[in-house]
């Protein structure tokens, strides 16, 4: 029987959730017995080569490329999981919601004390920054949510194994928090 296929992506996140996946440490060897990985920064597979069973999304959407990748994941994954606070609620980057994007850009590119050439980058190749940071479930349907910044490694492991076994996940009360 073919193993379930997992894909992962980091949108407007910090890669901390992917690091937390690696923090399952020795269980990584058990994980690769249970599943195969497809498109993911953990592998070097850049495009979906097959439809996947589980997609794990880190980060919310702060630009149009994030939205594009997220929609691709929804299309190619049977089950989509929002992993970590940024995917769930926008997380820390959503602190810019309520501040005009121009103010953020000007602070970073024009007024910052170490800035050299004072231009706000603008090029056809650059993604377009959205008016605010959107949590994933406001863009596509999300099936499951894993809280934490990042979700602790054991929680990610328990969630994946419960999902693979078709059992309910016991989300302990103490995991239902930001940090």
């Amino acid at each position, binding site marked *: 029987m073919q193993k379930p296929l997992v894909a992962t992506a980091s949108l407007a996140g910090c*890669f901390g959730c992917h690091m937390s996946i690696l923090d399952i440490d020795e269980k990584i*060897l058990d994980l690769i017995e249970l599943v195969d990985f497809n498109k993911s920064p953990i592998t070097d597979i*850049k495009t979906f080569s097959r439809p996947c069973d589980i997609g794990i999304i880190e980060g919310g959407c702060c*630009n149009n490329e994030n939205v594009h990748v997220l929609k691709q994941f929804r299309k190619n994954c049977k089950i989509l999981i929002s992993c970590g606070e940024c995917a769930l609620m926008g997380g820390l980057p959503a602190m810019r919601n309520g*501040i005009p994007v121009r103010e953020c850009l000007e*602070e970073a590119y024009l007024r910052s004390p170490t800035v050299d050439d004072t231009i706000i980058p603008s090029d056809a190749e650059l993604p377009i920054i959205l008016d605010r940071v959107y949590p994933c479930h406001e863009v596509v349907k999300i099936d499951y949510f894993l809280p934490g910044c990042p979700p602790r490694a054991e929680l990610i492991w328990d969630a994946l194994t419960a999902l693979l076994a078709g059992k309910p996940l016991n989300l302990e009360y103490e995991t239902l928090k930001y940090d």
Partner: protein
Amino acid sequence: MSKKITIEPVTRVEGHGKVTIHLDDNNKVTQSRLHIVEFRGFERFVQGRPYWEAPVLVQRLCGICPVSHHLAAAKAIDVVIGVGPDGLSPAGEKMRRLMHYGQIFQSHSLHFFHLASPDLLFGIDADPEIRNVIGVALNHKDLAVRGVLMRKFGQEIIKATAGKKIHGTGAIPGGINKNLSIAERDYFSMAKRSPMSTR
């Protein structure tokens, strides 16, 4: 017609990245660009926050090297409260230093074993389905286990000094909010805990 080659994501660096290579009609490279485009606005949105939040806010710039950002902000707020680099308590200074050693250790292990070793072991032209850390685990299990344990050791040092493996809360204005307990010290100083001594 001019062409563009896109490599995304770049998986051999720690963090987000994209490379585009622009070619002219004769397939000569006209421009190569490294894109690190994730603009989140930290420079602006940290303004107006209570100063002691800075170390836990800015570390979320990067979940791979959060300690570096955590400590950089801690140094800044030390100055804010009038404690310069020489004013830290000895315990605070040593705990922060140890935290960063843990960071350097786990980050180097991650880069060498998880990111670079697949290219070195299988060659850069190998099938991407194999040329990754999972391929290493399947084909060179002993090496993969040692890499995983080395990274774990660094992460455990960070947890002991910062409270969490990723995005800890250890550094506070003027010092650190926990000590290294005797039990923790003994745990790390036992030679058999060392990931380098598995041979």
